């Protein structure tokens, strides 16, 4: 019996075991997945929790409900991977031998990595994150009591899960304050370590003008060194005072990867960006947010890369060369408030562009343009996530990015 062991039953890990269970013979392959939680969280839903748009119950389901028959689901925390012996050790002492290992334990927010953030007395009092289930719910409470002052939306450092989510939060906060008649009493600031609203020129120009229209002040190139009470201080000694801080703490891979000698300075696992095979071991892959590919840490990247990985894995275990090549494809709806959203679609080589995104039957969606259809697309995605994506059913989206419908910057009038 050959053994495939998957660490993490999140978006990537769940898709992988469900897809591979269909493709690998049950007589020849044992598939096991380990997760520390018995709940699967719909992380894109966290954005809506602080505004009361989703209830807490709407964003999680039992992990086991989404794992196919024929896959063993283990509940446990990982102590370390002993890669030279092909075994994973859990904190309770259980040893799990494998022939092939897939690391899919993602990244997590680490407020402890910024001086004064978690330990300065303001955490969950005036400082909140919304990238955790608890954090998003605590923020809902704080927002409902917030009536005036300075609200700062802040990113500690890149890369982060869903790089557009802090912008979406700023847009939604603006709309939410307007709806309550409080917008005139609140200064809204967006502090980012990037030189602008986003990394790539076409999307940055569009998103920057949306921030300007909403009178959201951008503080670019702001790399926080420490938090002092209710004040952010950057490495170059700029200060931003806040009454309410919504921060995205440093995102790091799981600590067991550092203990196992498999992670880089952020505990991300170095891989080949096209095959996702680790650079260190020919029988270990790292998928989803856990790896170091220069792409968005987003569910769509996990999805598209798992499509490519599945075919490659079958070739690899047969001793054949892997012919699939992941292109860094990402595809995200960007909520902009008042029932509208934008859509962006891009990869390693092509930045998000304007134009149309064709989807047979439902599309086209408009790229980098605020429309109601994009907003409904975003909301409909929750159903797709549970019922199509996680079970590993075919989605009507190609894994590789297509230029169909996109305007090339040099051909635009």
């Amino acid at each position, binding site marked *: 019996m050959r053994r495939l062991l998957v660490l993490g039953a999140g978006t990537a890990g769940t898709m992988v075991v469900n897809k591979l269970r269909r493709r690998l013979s049950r007589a020849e392959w044992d598939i096991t997945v380990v997760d520390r939680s018995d709940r699967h969280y719909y992380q894109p839903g966290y954005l809506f929790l602080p505004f009361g748009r989703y209830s807490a119950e709407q964003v999680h389901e039992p992990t086991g409900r989404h794992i196919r028959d024929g896959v063993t689901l283990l509940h446990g925390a990982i102590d370390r991977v002993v890669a030279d012996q092909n075994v994973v050790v859990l904190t309770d002492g259980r040893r799990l031998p494998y022939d092939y290992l897939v690391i899919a334990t993602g990244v997590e927010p680490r407020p402890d990595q910024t001086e004064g953030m978690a330990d300065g007395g303001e955490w969950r009092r005036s400082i909140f994150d919304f990238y955790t289930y608890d954090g998003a719910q605590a923020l809902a409470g704080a927002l409902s009591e917030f009536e005036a002052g300075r609200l700062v939306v802040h990113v500690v*450092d*890149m*890369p982060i899960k869903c*790089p557009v989510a802090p912008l979406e939060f700023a847009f939604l906060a603006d709309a939410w304050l307007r709806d309550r008649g409080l917008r005139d009493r609140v200064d809204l600031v967006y502090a980012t*370590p*990037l*030189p602008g609203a*986003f*990394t*790539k020129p076409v999307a940055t120009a569009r998103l920057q003008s949306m921030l300007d229209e909403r009178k959201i002040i951008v503080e670019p*190139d702001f*790399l926080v*060194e420490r938090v002092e009470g209710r004040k952010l201080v950057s*490495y*170059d000694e700029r200060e931003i005072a806040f009454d309410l801080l919504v921060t995205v703490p440093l995102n790091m891979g799981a600590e067991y990867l550092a203990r196992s000698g498999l992670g*880089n*300075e*952020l505990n991300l696992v*170095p891989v080949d960006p096209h095959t996702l095979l680790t650079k260190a071991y020919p029988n270990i892959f790292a998928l989803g947010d856990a790896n170091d590919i*220069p*792409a*968005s*840490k987003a569910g769509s990247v996990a999805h598209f890369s798992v499509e490519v990985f599945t075919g490659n894995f079958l070739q690899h275990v047969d001793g054949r060369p892997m012919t699939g090549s992941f292109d860094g494809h*990402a595809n995200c709806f960007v909520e902009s408030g008042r029932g509208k959203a934008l859509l962006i679609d*891009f990869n390693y080589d092509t930045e998000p562009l304007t134009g149309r995104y064709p989807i047979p039957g439902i599309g086209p969606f408009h790229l980098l343009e605020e429309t109601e259809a994009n907003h409904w697309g975003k909301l409909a995605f929750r159903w797709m996530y549970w019922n199509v994506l996680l079970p590993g059913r075919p989605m009507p989206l190609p894994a590789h990015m297509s230029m169909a419908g996109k305007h090339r910057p040099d051909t635009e009038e």
Partner: protein
Amino acid sequence: MPMTAIAGREVHVDDEGFLTVYGEWDDDLAEQLAAQIGIELTEAHWKAINFLREDYRRQGETPTLRRVSVVGGIPTKTLFTLFPKKPAKKMAYIAGLPKPHGCV
């Protein structure tokens, strides 16, 4: 890819002036590139530049500020003093490496 003349010779650069060919760089060129953005290279600057060059040679990617601090052992605060305002970008420019892509 455009060419430009720095320190009396032709080198390949991108549209923002970052060198695109690893082997076209040397110490003289670094001094010239630094001077163009108002920096005079001291021993402390060279420690950072040399780490960037060496790390890129091994990893194939321009290191982030966090990597220079954690792996290269130069505190981020120091990097902001040596290369004011935009240390990641300025270091890469002087070291003749691609602009670090703030991961999307």
